[in-house]
């Protein structure tokens, strides 16, 4: 198992390099003078000249890439001009908030989605199945940002159950109950679409498995039906559900950008959008590379989980 994890980690290196190359190439699409673009239109000529020298923009592209890569490997992602602090500090701080939001949403959508899929499959064509199918259809059709706005209207403005936005109350907040109160709506809004997708695919994965011969064997043994469904069938279905979870994690992370805007959540997505609007390109570049790298590592974790579940995968 350890050697399998090491092998998967090694195989991530070319992917990570590829990500840096792609980001580098995209950033070289910037029309006009990059230093002006990076510093924004308010930059003084001295600053532009200094940045050009710092970035080595007089050097050839390949050389520039390796300088950039070398700097990143030592943890130097440059300085954000709009915030006047190192990019890495800002990204890590914001990423923390995103992880809380996206992590909660991902846990929610995995649990709810699989549960809904299992119930739906076990009660195929029954009332529960029809109700779940209907809710899921609505869930995957509402854009998460619209859903978030409607939730604010209903639960925060009209019913006053939950705070409108932010991560903590400005006065007297900061503890865990306060965080949970602020987290509930954005996490649910972010989880909605992914829950629907996971529920649908879990349902069909379960139906596929329930027709297999080994389910009949379990029933012939006299295994109680609850255990046939939650044990035998779900375990086999997880083999096809886990890769879906990996893909959905990417969508949850993407959706977090919208939800962070709607709920004023101080995460990396909102930071990226602000940075784009302020043309703070070093911040965008650093944020994209760091988040993408984390996503690659997460997918390795998914692969490892899969190999733990399925003994037929060669480790």
């Amino acid at each position, binding site marked *: 198992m350890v050697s399998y994890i090491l092998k998967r980690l090694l195989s991530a290196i070319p992917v990570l390099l*590829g*990500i840096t190359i*792609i980001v580098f190439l*995209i*950033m*070289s*699409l*910037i*029309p006009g003078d990059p230093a002006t673009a990076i510093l924004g239109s308010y930059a003084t000529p001295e600053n532009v000249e200094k940045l050009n020298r710092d970035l080595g923009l007089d050097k050839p592209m390949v050389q520039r890439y390796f300088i950039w890569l070398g700097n990143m490997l030592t943890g130097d992602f440059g300085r954000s001009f709009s915030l006047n602090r190192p990019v890495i500090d800002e990204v890590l701080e914001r990423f923390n908030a995103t992880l809380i939001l996206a992590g909660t949403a991902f846990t929610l959508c995995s649990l709810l989605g699989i549960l809904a899929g299992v119930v739906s499959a076990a009660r*195929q064509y029954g009332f529960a199945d029809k109700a779940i199918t209907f809710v899921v*259809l*609505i869930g995957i*059709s*509402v*854009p998460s*940002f*619209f859903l978030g*706005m*409607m939730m*604010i*209207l209903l639960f925060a*403005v009209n019913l006053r159950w939950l705070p*409108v936005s932010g991560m903590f109350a400005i006065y007297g907040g900061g503890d865990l109950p306060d965080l949970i109160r602020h987290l509930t709506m954005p996490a649910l809004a972010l989880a909605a679409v992914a829950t629907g997708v996971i529920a649908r695919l879990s349902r*069909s994965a379960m*139906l*596929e498995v*329930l*027709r297999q*011969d*080994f*389910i*009949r*064997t*379990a*029933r*012939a*043994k*006299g*295994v*109680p*039906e609850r255990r*046939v469904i939650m044990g*035998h069938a779900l*375990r086999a279905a997880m083999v096809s559900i886990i890769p879906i979870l990996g893909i959905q994690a990417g*969508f949850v992370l*993407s959706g977090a*950008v*919208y939800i962070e805007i709607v709920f004023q959540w101080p995460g990396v997505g909102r930071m*990226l*959008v602000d940075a*784009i609007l302020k043309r703070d*390109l070093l911040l*965008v570049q650093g944020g994209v590379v760091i*988040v*993408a790298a984390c*996503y*690659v590592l997460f997918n390795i974790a998914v692969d490892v989980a899969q190999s733990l579940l*399925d*003994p*037929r995968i060669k480790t």
Partner: protein
Amino acid sequence: MSAFFKLLFRNRLAAMGAVVLSAILLLVLITPILPLNDPDVTATADRFKRPFSEGHLLGTDHLGRDLLSRLLHGTRLSLAIGIAAALIAATIGSAIGIIAGYFGGRTDNIIMRGVDMLMAFPYILLALAIVAALGPGLMNALIAVAAVNVPFFARNIRGITVGLAGREFIDAARLAGMGHSRIILTELLPNVLPVIVIAMSTTVGWMILETAGLSFLGLGSQPPQADLGSMLGEARSAMISHPHTSIVPGIMIFLIVMSINLLGDGVRDALDPRLRSGALSRPRATTLVERVGDTPAATDDLLAIQDLETQFHVGQRVYRAVGGVSLAVKPGECLGVIGESGSGKSVTALSVMGLVASPPGVITGGAVRFQGEDLIGAPYESLRRKRGDRVAYIFQDPLSTLHPLYRIGQQLAEAIKSHHKVSNAEARERAIQLLNDVRIPNAEARVDNYPHEMSGGMRQRIGIAMALANAPDVIIADEPTTALDVTVQAQILTLLDDLRRDRGLAIIFITHDFGVVAQLCDRVAVMYAGRIVEEGPTQVVLDAPAHPYTKRLIACVPELGGGRRELDAIPGLPPVVDDLPAGCAFAPRCDKAQDTCRAGTIALAGPSSRAVRCLYPEEAI
């Protein structure tokens, strides 16, 4: 094609999606000629008018602009941008996919590596990076969304192209001296095009949503021009005081995405043949029972199947898989049930414990009595308590009948623990004992193996060990040796025979092989088209088969050392059981058939232990 549309529109939800989507498309197409206010003319005096106010059907926004007009123009823009992005992504992605798939080798390798890299990004990061480099704006958002979706098309189309590139017509074109670009354009593209169109139709809704999302973030369309996303984005600041400005564009996005989803689901279902046949239905925990008529009275047999009728209901069709079968076993007895595939022998066996997959299976008549108690229609829990404990099954093909993700020991232990309260250690001990009983060498180590780590013969022994786990009274073995080679088969049969003698076990042995029956069974019943056509003591039936079908079936078995005997396959095929002929089902294949054979039902008749269902039997009984 018209059959496809018929299927599609029989799905009411898909039809609804089509109607909503068509209505929206029609509305945006005629938007320019509708008598609407100018969407960009501001009137600060008329700010935030509520819906249904005079002159503004949907009210006005924060600058007093007419919401209805802005909505229709915004929808028009959103749809146009989404479709344009889909077209661009499809064109570029497909071109990349076709080139990679057609040229193969290093070109393919390098291109696909790049595609994999792009797919390693959560899509929004890539889109944000592109917008960051190019700057916010509708055109740049369109480019970003298209670019993000290029890998999807490249990968799908490459897969199709690789399959096509190896085909003869491409080789022929090459030999005819056609250049690469001509082959791609005239030979490959027409074949790939339908796949491109389908892939596009499934992603276009997604791309509409993505561009709306970028606009919502303020990175797409810039004021005063508005698509649905930016309408929603601008309305957000006034959401609490004037929610209608947010709700109007939000609901439009919802309607568009939902109608595309419904339509897409409908298309997918209509194209999937498994849904039509009902093959995607989940089998219930026990077979459905819809019994009509009286239940036969109890007998003193250990297990008695009485006038059992099991049918498969598929759509309007009724397949009478088992049409009134009676069988019985006493302790220590082995009964063989023999027949061709499709004769109903397995369905009979599975009906006993309610294991026929249902839907589509339904037990419509008769009884199955275990020690006098009727199991058909018994409550689930009472049936479950007997499954594996009193009546156990051994199935064919243990690779698919054992759970692939549980260890052998766990599966054996579970069989015990489903019926008896024992500790894990005890259950494991018992599992090892069972493996020894079925003569698995090195049982201590094997108990921790997974099924895929064992050979076919070993797995079959596991299946037997599992059936023996609770020392049942009856074992129903459904072709347990069919998948095995001859030596292993002989070992398994000897094993079963020993167990029967040692433990007084009753066995119902289902097979299509008379050789196996001769070796193991005391009595044999021959099934054809869901009915028993002959039964009797094994040796008697073998020596003097009375039914023409039995005779032909026995003639099919090659005899070892019996010299050259003609292998006499039976001409024709068994009948399909949804449309059985009146009278003898074998008559169409029988060379002795008379008109009377086709006239009416023929009874199974004979002295107590011997019976045949034939008007002109081969031997008097």
